[in-house]
């Protein structure tokens, strides 16, 4: 038996993985070389002390949580920055509207109690969306729906049943607000909404 085999046997005993055959081998070896028992005891003690030290060090991990909200916030800020720099201030202003005005004027109220309470919107997301568009058009909120969907990501499903696609649906809306804001960047890099008055005439693009 070479040194590695001896080490593996000792290690198995320390880890509680030794079989009856392993123990027989150890006893036979110890009969020829009784220092094996003291070597085993020393190795066991080293392992216990090492693990105690490791446990003390890694205990700090219990205090570290996954930063879900922080990452979500960073992602939103990054998207706002991209919109502000790449799409011009009009896009940034549109995002600022959603940001400043909140969900009440920018999108339909969430359906939280099932379709039974709102029979007029239907039972499927498609029916609810269609109802929203129709009622929005009647009230003047919805101007139109852009036919193209903007595909963000797509991949094949693991079970081979098809593809998963993430896309953005574009609905053009109109809203009247007392103030208009645009996003500007402070010296520290924070995006803050600031008032951005426009001339009173229409751009004529709509």
């Amino acid at each position, binding site marked *: 038996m070479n*040194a*590695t085999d001896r*080490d*593996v046997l*000792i*290690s*198995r005993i*320390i*880890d509680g*993985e030794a079989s009856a055959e392993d123990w027989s081998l150890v006893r036979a070896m110890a009969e020829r070389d009784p220092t094996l028992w003291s*070597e085993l005891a*020393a*190795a066991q003690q*080293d*392992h216990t*002390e*090492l*693990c*105690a*030290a*490791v*446990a*003390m*060090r*890694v205990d*700090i*991990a*219990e*205090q*570290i*949580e*996954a*930063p*879900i909200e*922080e*990452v979500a916030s*960073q*992602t939103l800020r990054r998207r706002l920055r991209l919109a502000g720099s790449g799409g011009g201030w009009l896009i940034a202003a549109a995002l600022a509207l959603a940001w400043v005005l909140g969900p009440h004027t920018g999108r339909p109220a969430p359906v939280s109690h099932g379709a039974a309470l709102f029979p007029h919107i239907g039972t499927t997301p498609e029916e609810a969306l269609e109802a929203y568009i129709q009622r929005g058009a009647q009230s003047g909120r919805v101007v139109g729906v852009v036919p193209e969907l903007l595909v963000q990501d797509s*991949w094949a499903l693991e079970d081979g049943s098809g593809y998963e696609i993430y896309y953005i649906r574009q609905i053009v809306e109109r809203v009247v607000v007392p103030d208009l804001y645009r996003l500007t960047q402070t010296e520290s890099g924070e995006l803050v909404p600031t008032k951005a008055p426009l001339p009173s005439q229409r751009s004529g693009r709509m």
Partner: protein
Amino acid sequence: MSVLEGPQVRREVLAAMRGDPDALRTLWQQHRRWVAAILLAHKPREADLEDLLQEVAMVMVRSMHELRDPAAFKPWLRMVAVNAAKALGRSTSLRRLRYTADAPGEGAASPDPGPEAMVRTREEGRQLLEIAEQLPEGYREPLLMRCIQGMSYREIGRVLDLPETTIETRIARGRRMLRELLAGRATRDGVLKQTPSMEIES
């Protein structure tokens, strides 16, 4: 069934890949201790473990959706940890504290029983960890991981992408090296030497 293995873990990995916040939280809580052990095995000694853990948690949450194979989650998370530790090592000018001949083995043991025993054990454990951190990478990782939540050879093998038999051999050899280094037999001129017995076995 271990909390680190099984169909439930696979479901959580899949959910986390889709961005499910609860799954991300749970996964991190289940795996953060062995991630800490990986960081211990790779980080520069002066680096703060807490900062590195926060960095790894951040990367995991931010990049989990890029993972394509749920079975690759653990090796992937390990690589995130190794990269975080090594990036810190590259970016910081570090004073290398070297293992010296008289540091680990001498002056630690006290024959006195009683309240001092606990302190002595802690001190010896600290020295052992210090030596373990100096072992070749292939040995120190499984050796430290074995101390985490009783991780089995198989679980360690999944993280390191190695067969169980290799993990078993490396842990056994790593323990041998620890004992030798602790006794001061494998040191010369005050600096840990890479001896033939420390070459990686697979």
